[in-house]
């Protein structure tokens, strides 16, 4: 009980800092990078839901990010729709495509699923790239409007955009908390653990995986839609496989299958990349091996490692309580 409270307090403290932060800085660059971090974290949460919690490594997420971004971009630029309407429509489009792809993709398992989704991601990229009449191809879409004002609140300053993105991020994190701390989340974890076992205890794995997958594409699409209105320029590159790999990296570093992993990993890597900017295209010289080494030696990532450490400590404590004299196990722990 005590633990839950500290966890919650920590989250609240972080949220308070995030809310107060723009009041103490005028540094547009810092606000910009934080806003980008929030956008990517939303997408990484999507990847985490299906890959980290449900155990189905989807490599199509940059594709769904692209669909969300292009939907919003096209609907606002070419059809002159209001951003909010475009975002809602964009989410419907993304999840509808996600649904259809999920129906097919999720019938395949493990390697097949990874390969299939990798190819789906590539198809989406190729379409965005080659279907020039619709997407303008390599030229990309320019002049995407900032989100339309809601009543008196406008979104044309970096600070207000920061708050808008923070709002969506908090919403996504809240949703993920609710889902993963319920039997619904347990169901996904059971599927990740063993699909066979899950089926034999009466879980309709296909249906559950569908829900998880479609929701994960929803997050990717939301992230893409926000990105379009925030960066205001999009090209087919945003849906290239390397973007999925970036998301994957954020996730692995932060901790796959943990709730705080996406934020931790994205914050860390995005900021680190800023400092390593002199490396530019060569940053993968560091991050590539990092990804490989982490998955071999520390697959839990930062958040997972912390969780494990706390679980161990808790275990030690309870064992001490239950068996006051147990010098052997004490020594083993050391």
């Amino acid at each position, binding site marked *: 009980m005590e633990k839950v409270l500290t966890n919650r307090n920590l989250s609240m403290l972080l949220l308070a800092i995030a809310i107060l932060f723009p009041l103490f800085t005028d540094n547009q660059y810092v606000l910009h990078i934080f806003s980008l971090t929030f956008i990517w974290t939303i997408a990484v949460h999507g990847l985490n839901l299906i*890959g980290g919690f449900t*155990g189905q*490594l989807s490599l199509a997420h940059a594709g769904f990010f692209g669909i969300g971004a292009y939907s919003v971009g096209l609907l606002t630029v070419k059809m002159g729709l209001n951003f909010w309407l475009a975002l809602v429509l964009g989410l419907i489009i993304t999840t509808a495509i996600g649904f259809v792809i999920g129906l*097919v*993709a999720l*019938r*395949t*398992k*493990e*390697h*097949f699923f*990874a*390969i*299939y989704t*990798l*190819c*789906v991601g*590539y*198809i989406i990229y*190729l*379409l965005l790239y*080659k279907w020039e009449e619709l997407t303008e191809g390599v030229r990309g879409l320019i002049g995407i409007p900032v989100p339309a004002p809601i009543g008196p609140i406008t979104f044309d300053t970096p600070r207000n955009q920061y708050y808008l993105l923070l709002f969506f991020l908090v919403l996504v994190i809240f949703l993920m908390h609710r889902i993963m701390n319920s039997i619904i989340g347990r169901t996904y974890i059971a599927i990740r653990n063993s699909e066979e076992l899950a089926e034999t205890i009466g879980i309709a794995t296909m249906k559950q995986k569908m829900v998880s997958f479609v929701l994960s594409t929803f997050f990717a699409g939301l992230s893409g839609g926000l990105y379009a209105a925030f960066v205001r320029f999009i090209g087919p590159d945003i849906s290239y*496989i*390397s973007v999925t*790999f970036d998301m*994957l990296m954020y996730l*692995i570093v932060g901790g796959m299958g943990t709730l705080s992993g996406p934020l931790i990993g994205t914050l860390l890597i995005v900021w680190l990349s800023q400092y390593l900017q002199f490396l530019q*295209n*060569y*940053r*993968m*010289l560091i*991050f*590539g*091996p*990092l*990804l*490989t*080494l982490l*998955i*071999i030696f520390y*697959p839990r990532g930062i958040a997972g490692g912390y969780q494990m450490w706390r679980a161990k400590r808790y275990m030690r404590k309870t064992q001490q309580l239950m068996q006051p004299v147990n010098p052997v196990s004490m020594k083993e722990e050391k």
Partner: protein
Amino acid sequence: MIDILVQQIFNAMTIGSVYSLVALGLTLVYGILHIPNFAHGALYMVGGYMTLIVMLETGVHYLLAIVASIFVVGILAILMERLVFHPLRNAPPTHDKIAAIGMMLFLEALVQLVWGAEYRPMPTPFGQVVEFFGLTVTMQRILIIGTAIVVMILLNLFLKKTMVGATIIAMSQDREGAFLVGINANKVAMLTFFISGGLAAIAASIASPINLVFPGMGHLVILKAFVIIIIGGMGSIPGAIIGGYILGFSESLSATFISNDYKDLIAFLLLVVILTARPKGLFAKGVH
């Protein structure tokens, strides 16, 4: 019309040969270790660069440069197996893919750092145009098809006629059984990775003079190779060869008759159709 068709068939054979070689390496590794090596495309890319650089730096003959490239990439593949896939053999199935992606990203960045990001042409001593059964083609294309066929025959002889080759086959058919009869699984795995890397190097080296050499050259190739081995059955050697040519033909014909822009989509549409109908691949065995 007939001319175009014959020309396209020849084209298809050229593309298909390259695809088959890449897919062969991928399928061999899958057969032995049940790993879909996502970094195989990076091996292909390094293979292209090695041949190019060895040729340019030392001035040796194209064919010698290819030999050097085979060894470098083969050893790189062995290192991958030892340092990455072997430690992950008991990890959850997502891990080996993520690790492979990490290596791929690294190799691409490294190549880009050392040799730059430009698209580079590869010179070849086989650039001359010849008449071949009434077709006007470059020697290079004939070389591609010929090399692929020779390599496949040699590989087949190696697998069927040598002790080591038989071991590879045995292991790919029954891993546990192979352990029981005392096969040194580590050695077989390393050898398989060497062959797989070598095949990728050959494929890249013969294909590069008609394509180009650049850090991202492996992306499409690896994706297509995956499509091929799914068509042909993961782990199946004849499947990889036939699948490679099937894809070569479909692409080349659709480039002529449909649209050159979308020819890269063919492979993926093929995959989508196949996996929709048969989630475990076209020639899935009873295993799960």
